[in-house]
């Protein structure tokens, strides 16, 4: 009888305990299934992304090896210049090609060190903060036009991961940042560096795994000046460096199909769309890459060991 009374008293507690056990077990099973699904998914994505990168930068840019002749290094720089041009319309001058060739030879011979990932992040942060300081009002407007999404918002990343704001907000924010930068206020640098770090780290991670023969030493020993220029272009334009240029026409058509717009609907958006996937009016993602990734930016990369002076 006493036992029965005890059980009766304990019943609500037992029910709650059983409920807790069931919920916890269910949650654990659900999580474990979801985790394994996610793991499989992540592995598939990784594999696909490696293949796409190998078809893109992996097959279209030949990075120089340690014992390459100057001619081979020059050919390597030219392949990177053509790669960037084909994807974004940015054209590398002969002068920049020569300076990059020299920097690559020096890096290969160990005369000037490779650029560490941290240093690269610092350089890109400086490129952005310095460029913001010198933007004219007209260039701010151009940047807003270039970053404008089909929905009329402004986003500086294809994924809109840093947010999407109105044109007026964007112009206001860039102008405020310009004032900070001109005053030498560290706030802009403090805000920009983590963003650059995230972008650089993601690229280094993917490139070193997809193309270990070229980028395998990047995390431990840094990148060569030419690799730094390609990563800088990638960060500035949000180009993941994937896919071959032979696929661009088909990609453009597929993008249109995905948007599900009729010709007249597309036309009413009044968007200029180039035949290149990135850069100004890129059909995949439009950015004012020419405003950011200019000669001064390349100078900072090439002259990283000399404090990033601009070439005369």
């Amino acid at each position, binding site marked *: 009888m006493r036992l029965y009374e005890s059980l009766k008293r304990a019943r609500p507690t037992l029910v709650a305990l059983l409920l807790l056990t069931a*919920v916890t077990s269910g949650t654990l099973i659900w999580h474990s299934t979801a985790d394994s699904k996610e793991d499989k998914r992540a592995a598939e994505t990784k594999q696909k992304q490696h293949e796409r990168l190998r078809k893109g930068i992996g097959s279209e840019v030949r990075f120089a090896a340690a014992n390459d002749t100057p001619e081979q290094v020059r050919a390597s720089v030219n392949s990177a210049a053509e790669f960037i041009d084909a994807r974004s319309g940015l054209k590398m001058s002969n002068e920049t090609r020569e300076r990059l060739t020299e920097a690559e030879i020096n890096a290969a011979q160990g005369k000037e060190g490779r650029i560490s990932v941290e240093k690269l992040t610092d350089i890109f942060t400086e490129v952005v903060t310095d460029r913001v300081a010198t933007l004219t009002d007209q260039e701010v407007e151009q940047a807003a036009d270039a970053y404008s999404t089909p929905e009329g918002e402004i986003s500086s*990343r294809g994924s809109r991961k840093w947010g999407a704001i109105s044109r007026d907000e964007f112009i206001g924010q860039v102008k405020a940042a310009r004032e900070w930068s001109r005053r030498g206020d560290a706030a802009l640098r403090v805000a920009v560096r983590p963003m650059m770090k995230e972008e650089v780290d*993601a690229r280094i991670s993917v490139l070193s795994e997809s193309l270990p023969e070229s980028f395998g030493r990047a995390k431990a020993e840094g990148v060569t000046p030419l690799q730094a220029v390609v990563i800088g272009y990638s960060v500035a334009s949000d180009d993941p460096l994937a896919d071959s240029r032979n696929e661009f026409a088909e990609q453009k058509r597929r993008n249109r199909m995905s948007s599900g*717009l009729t010709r007249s609907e597309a036309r009413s958006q009044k968007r200029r769309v180039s035949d290149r996937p990135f850069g100004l009016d890129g059909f995949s993602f439009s950015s004012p890459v020419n405003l950011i990734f200019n000669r001064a930016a390349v100078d900072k990369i090439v002259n990283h060991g000399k404090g990033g002076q601009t070439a005369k």
Partner: protein
Amino acid sequence: MKLTTKLLLLVTLCLVAVAGRCGGGTGGGLCSRICFAGYEYQVIYHDQCSFSRTYQCFTGGYSGSFSFPADCNGTCNVTVIEWRRLGYSLAAAPAGADLNAPPPSVTITGQAMDGTYGMPNVQYFDPNGYLIGSVTATSVSGDGTTLTAPVPDLSSAYSGTYQVQVTNKTSSGYYQDIVGAATLNCWGRDRPDSDGDGWFDDEDCYPYDPMRTSCGDTGGCNNNEPDMPPHQYQEICPMY
């Protein structure tokens, strides 16, 4: 507090914590979701006010997130579906059509076409990838190898090779699995270029003036770029 109450409170807290890890976020009228590199997503709003949007997952890494505006009520009450491209080759019968007398329906053959959760969606795209029309299939064979669908209004379509894309409805209730596409060669109505300036009327801001094509939007990096319709110009950018 009674033990049972404490336990129930604990259970509730557990569930809240678990649920909190699954969803996206919102802040300042912006919502976000995790995405995987190279995949495409469609955001479907439920407020009868916002339009559905499509996004590609852009990321310098393998996965990232994409953001989209909150709905008209400022909430992230949306459904995000990921398109799956199954990549099957399909064939259309008839394989061609006279635009002046189009067939009432086409039969698509291939595989993986599925009517389990509703008839598939069939979209017709012109040679440049613009949508011409979207219809619902009328029947799908049990083994998923044959589908019949009506032909949409082609009265404003021009001669060329069209893509007929089949998308299955999934258990989520949304059109999510893009099975593949068949080609349909259409003839009988050539795209007009009334002023003979090399630009078709539907891409020419001045279709009857051979001296002008651009809508006046010069833009670009410099002012000496050729005068081209906005969607076809090749950008000429400064050197670095």
